[in-house]
């Protein structure tokens, strides 16, 4: 007898691509066949910034005791005992929460991710609790895409987790740490740990304004020099082999990341020792989970950490980062702003797989962007299509870069200056008579001094985001004549020609002839003129 369609998992699976998560949810409840068939699709893509995750996270009980936080956007009641001290376990008005009347706690959340985590292929994390959930038991090892936005503002009210300290003199600069109270205290073996100091009556974070300021250790320049950093830019780096003044808990995943991989900074003088320690411990825990997650997902194709919370108090050693990146043989898209900050570009390049297609490392503090180019020049790479990095160079430098990455379609640099009159640099390459790499470059970001030459040698550019370069009349008219291909021009300052005089006579207005697309007009300040120019442009 032929089986019915609804009983054949292989066929039922064909339906999955057409169903929304809500429909998939209905389907996984139907029976065990459908459950098995649809769970992988339901759990394929997880983004904890959606409202429903926020709701669930707010229901998590057994948090550490929290002081009462001021009223937030939610109307949820925070239960307190009659004399108004905070209660450890928060209960909710259950009737607000659909029909789930079970108590959800942290272990329940962890169990879910243990159960379903291996189906996840795309993960977008804002909450430290979710990060912990996916990392702790290595339940999530099939990731292809990881977006980390820890510390980003999300829709769900975070402040319910946070002890909001009232401004105390020594703590006015303490940043609000998302989810501070929610992380597991790692098992302590012979070290003293306090993740979150227990709240005092005034709700502050272990306020003790009378403690003498800690002297701290001398800053050792050794590590700084080895990585080629300007000593003034990172002025709180300590020698990692010196005993840190803060005792952190033992590593959670000693096979992956140990204290030796850290670069712990001097104690922050502005806060009390307890606060400093708590913050470092928090950062340490987050760092461990983050790197553990990355290292146990060798199938990662895409990593985006551009909205990650900056780990001010310490960093991870470059060698550790490079070793980790070397594990990711399939990585194609790395947006490493923030988590991968301040790395030496070409050492980073060396650690990336050859098939990398998109790289964005705008290290604002790093003195070394892409330039100067190493000597001898790196091997040509035909796979990279998008490069957003820091660094300033000359026109020659730009063209050389294009020859190393001939298939770039989008390039972002800080500044491209004119070639010097007298080129004494033996590495400089004389301008060739014909286009020199960069035949596919469409979008260029950065301020360009000698745009005439640049656009002459790279005529494929149709979009130019000039960042801070002020536009003047001559430039506008010249661009019109020299760069007929230019479709989009964007810059930070409103250009001169948004001016009543010119909008009166459309045909004479150089802007009309110059600008071909509309969308970049949105950068301008003057709304009235924007509308006028925009109307003009719509005329045939």
């Amino acid at each position, binding site marked *: 007898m*032929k089986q019915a369609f609804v009983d054949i998992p292989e066929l039922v699976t064909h*339906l999955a*691509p057409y169903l929304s998560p809500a429909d998939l949810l209905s389907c996984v*409840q139907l029976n065990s066949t459908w459950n098995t068939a649809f769970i992988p699709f339901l759990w394929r893509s*997880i983004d904890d910034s959606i409202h*429903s995750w926020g709701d*669930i996270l707010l229901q998590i009980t057994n948090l550490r005791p929290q002081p009462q936080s001021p009223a937030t956007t939610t109307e949820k009641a925070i239960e307190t005992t009659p004399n108004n001290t905070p209660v450890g376990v928060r209960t909710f008005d259950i009737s607000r929460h659909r029909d789930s009347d079970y108590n959800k706690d942290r272990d329940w959340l962890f169990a879910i991710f243990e159960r379903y985590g291996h189906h996840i292929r795309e993960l977008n994390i804002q909450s430290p609790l979710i990060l912990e959930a996916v990392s702790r038991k290595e339940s999530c090892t099939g990731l292809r895409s990881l977006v980390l936005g820890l510390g980003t503002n999300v829709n769900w009210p975070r402040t319910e987790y946070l002890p909001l300290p009232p401004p105390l003199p020594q703590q006015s600069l303490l940043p609000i740490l998302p989810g501070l109270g929610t992380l597991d205290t790692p098992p302590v073996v012979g070290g003293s740990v306090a993740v979150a100091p227990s709240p005092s009556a005034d709700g502050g974070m272990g306020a003790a304004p009378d403690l003498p300021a800690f002297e701290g250790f001398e800053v050792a320049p050794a590590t700084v020099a080895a990585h080629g950093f300007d000593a003034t830019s990172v002025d709180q780096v300590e020698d990692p082999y010196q005993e840190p003044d803060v005792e952190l808990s033992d590593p959670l995943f000693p096979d992956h990341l140990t204290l030796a991989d850290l670069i712990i900074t001097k104690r922050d003088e502005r806060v009390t020792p307890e606060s400093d320690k708590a913050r470092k411990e928090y950062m340490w825990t987050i760092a461990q989970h983050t790197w553990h997650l990355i290292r146990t997902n060798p199938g990662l194709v895409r990593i985006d950490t551009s909205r990650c919370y900056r780990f001010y108090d310490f960093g991870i050693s470059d060698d550790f980062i490079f070793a980790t990146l070397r594990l990711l043989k399939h990585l194609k898209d790395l947006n490493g702003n923030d988590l991968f900050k301040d790395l030496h570009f070409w050492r980073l390049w060396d650690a990336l797989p050859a098939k990398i297609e998109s790289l964005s490392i705008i290290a604002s503090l790093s003195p070394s962007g892409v330039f100067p180019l190493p000597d001898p020049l790196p091997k040509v790479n035909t796979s990279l299509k998008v490069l957003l990095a820091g660094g300033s160079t000359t026109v020659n430098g730009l063209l050389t870069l294009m020859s190393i990455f001939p298939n770039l379609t989008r390039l972002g640099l800080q500044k491209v200056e004119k070639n010097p009159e007298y080129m004494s640099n033996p590495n400089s390459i004389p301008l060739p008579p014909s286009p020199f790499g960069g035949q596919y470059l469409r979008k260029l970001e950065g301020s360009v001094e000698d745009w005439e030459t640049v656009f002459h040698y790279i005529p494929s550019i149709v979009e130019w985001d000039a960042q801070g370069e002020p536009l003047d009349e001559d430039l506008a008219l010249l661009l019109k004549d020299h760069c007929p291909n230019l479709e989009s021009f964007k810059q930070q300052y409103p250009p001169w020609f948004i001016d009543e005089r010119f909008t009166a006579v459309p045909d004479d207005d150089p802007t009309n002839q110059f600008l071909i697309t509309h969308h970049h007009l949105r950068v301008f300040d003057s709304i009235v003129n924007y509308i006028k120019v925009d109307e003009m442009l719509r005329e045939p």
Partner: protein
Amino acid sequence: MPVILVSSDNQDFKVDKEVAERSILIKNMLEDVGESDSPIPLPNVTAAVLTKVIEYCEHHRNDPVQVPEETDDPRKRSNDIEEWDMKFMQVDQEMLFEIILAANYLDIKPLLDVGCKTVANIIKGKTPEEIRKAFNIVNDFTPEEEAQIKKENEWAEDR
């Protein structure tokens, strides 16, 4: 050049080769058999269903062959069924499922897609109980198991 297809209940269907080759299974069989005129037996497809399948292939005989897109994302839309296909799919549920099974067996991807989209549209917006009723699906979960599954996957609920 006509080809003869034989249904499971021994009915012959004469179709143009071009139409028959919308089925990759038949296409491959024809390539293997070569110039022979012998009819092709399809033991898994009844005459009623085969009629419908042939009708589909006739109507779509000139469609370009679909190339599967190289993408990691399996998600697709189901609101883009063309009008003729929609009318074509207005059959009773049993026939709908039979068509999908046949399209799967005969390897006619566009027909399989249309069939699945149609079924997906039936599922959309329904509660589990409604879906079970619509498709005669037997529930083998205990109420506790079902409640647990629902709770564990609560994040997916529509707000």
